[in-house]
């Protein structure tokens, strides 16, 4: 469904763009329908850049990203089938508007002729899928909701569109531990209903919890990839091994 072929991103910096930084270097992978793929990497690994390129928010320097055979483009048609949720829930909402402004924008952009009744039914359905009730959300400003609730509202927004692919970029790293797992479980449920997810994270245990395939990124390149249980049980690459060793465990020791 989603295919990245030898994708690279180069940024020009310095006076008159004299120097360049290769944030993503020759990355290729596939995402099948209903599959959760985690992109795991530390800061500077290029994982967020890949997510943005898939969504057409950042331009691709080299290579191709195709969705069902067509190049991805920042168009309404593409956004009906693929959406994203980002890391900071409080940055994702415009503070001058109420939280349901994000729903109104979707309605304007994609369902301009929908009747009120049909729209409210759709909304109720989407909110139900993320375990929120309309009273929790309507009439409230973003600062009145918690981070966890805001992330769920964003997932509900994506669900309004009946998408096939969700790019989840560090969506729970800014949430409290007690709410993280609930949002994560939500993603797991959605996957069971057929949604494909690209799960971008730096946290190996989260990737292990939820994904079918794992891709480890380092400095913009893929250093290891494969089915999740395999990558975690038998890491081939030195870097993966070092990462796994550095993860702090509740039960078990670093030494």
């Amino acid at each position, binding site marked *: 469904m989603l295919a990245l072929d030898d994708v690279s991103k180069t940024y020009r910096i310095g006076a008159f763009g004299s120097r360049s930084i290769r944030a993503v270097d020759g990355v290729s992978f596939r995402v099948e329908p209903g599959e959760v793929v985690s992109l795991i990497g530390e*800061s500077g690994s290029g994982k967020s850049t890949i997510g943005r390129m898939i*969504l057409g928010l950042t331009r691709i320097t080299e290579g191709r990203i195709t969705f069902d055979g067509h190049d991805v483009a920042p168009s309404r048609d593409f956004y009906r089938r693929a959406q994203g949720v980002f*890391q900071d829930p409080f*940055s994702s909402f415009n503070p001058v508007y109420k939280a349901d402004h*994000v729903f109104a924008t*979707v309605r304007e952009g994609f369902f301009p002729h929908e009747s009120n009744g049909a729209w409210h039914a759709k909304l109720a359905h989407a909110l139900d899928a993320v375990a929120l009730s309309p009273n929790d959300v309507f009439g409230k400003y973003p*600062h*009145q909701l918690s981070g966890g609730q805001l992330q769920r509202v964003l997932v509900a927004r994506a669900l309004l569109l009946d998408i096939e692919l969700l790019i989840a970029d560090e969506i729970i790293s*800014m*949430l409290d531990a007690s709410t993280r797992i609930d949002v994560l479980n939500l993603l797991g449920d959605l996957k069971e209903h057929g949604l494909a997810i690209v799960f971008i994270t730096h946290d190996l245990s989260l990737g292990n919890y939820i994904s079918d395939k794992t891709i480890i990124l380092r400095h913009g390149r893929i250093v290891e990839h494969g089915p999740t249980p395999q990558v975690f049980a038998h890491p081939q690459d030195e870097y993966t091994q070092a990462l796994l060793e550095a993860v702090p465990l509740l039960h078990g020791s670093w030494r």
Partner: protein
Amino acid sequence: MSATVVHRPVAEESRPGVVREALHFALRNRKLVVGSSITLAMLLFALVGPLLARHPALEYGGRLSSAPTTTDGYWFGTTLLGQDVYAQFVNGLRLAFTVGALGGGIAACIGMLVGFTAGYRSGIVDEILNMLTNVVLVIPTFALLLVIAAYLKVRGVMTESVFIGVTSWPWAARAIRAQTFSLVSRDFVDMARLSGRRSGRIIFQEIAPNMSSYLFMMFILLFGNAILIAATLDFIGLGPSNTISLGMMMQLSVQNAALQLHLWWWFLPPGLAITAIVGSLYVMNVGLDEVFNPKLRQL
């Protein structure tokens, strides 16, 4: 990179509470209250004053160089040539506010257009607009005005306002560009893009409302700035040629040695008025900054 868990206080008040909170601080902020009172008082004077003037501003009717009296409505006295200082004063006051609004408004519009576009688009568009901003910033406005003055037989208030508007926008554009830059990187702009919104709508619906307090303060500064520039231009004789303004009153009074002749009623009112308006606008702005910026507030 792992991020720190973010905490935002879960407030019970809704948006009207934010407005109420702003008002609470607004009414307590001395600078804002004093500044806006003076400005409003002058504005009121400018609106109502001309209705009370008994003589046309440029008419040579009264006694020469007479001090303020209550007879005949020469409340501010007369000039060396027998003109009614009060009439000139209120006329000038009205003109000052007109130039401020027009000149400031034009500068604000151009500044917003350039600033938003440069900040949102970045890349080559940004570089070109930056160059344009820098060029206009560096143009010697007086020299330009002298050249224009030489070619125009009659200069009106409109011309003056347009000129001020077209030459004083660069710093506003710069400031708006910088603010837009920081807002464009926020995720809600990406969210709007993911909903199929076009750039123009994103700028006006998502970005500008976040800067509303900033834009408001900027307009006040441009307003005061325009009045000051107009007064300066008038003082050196480059003002409108078909009417009398506060700056021109000061120019004429100095030219006619009003200081030496102790005709204080001629140069004191316009000078004080300009100082009061521009000064109170700036003070108001500082007060507004404290109201809008939670970090500067004192509890």
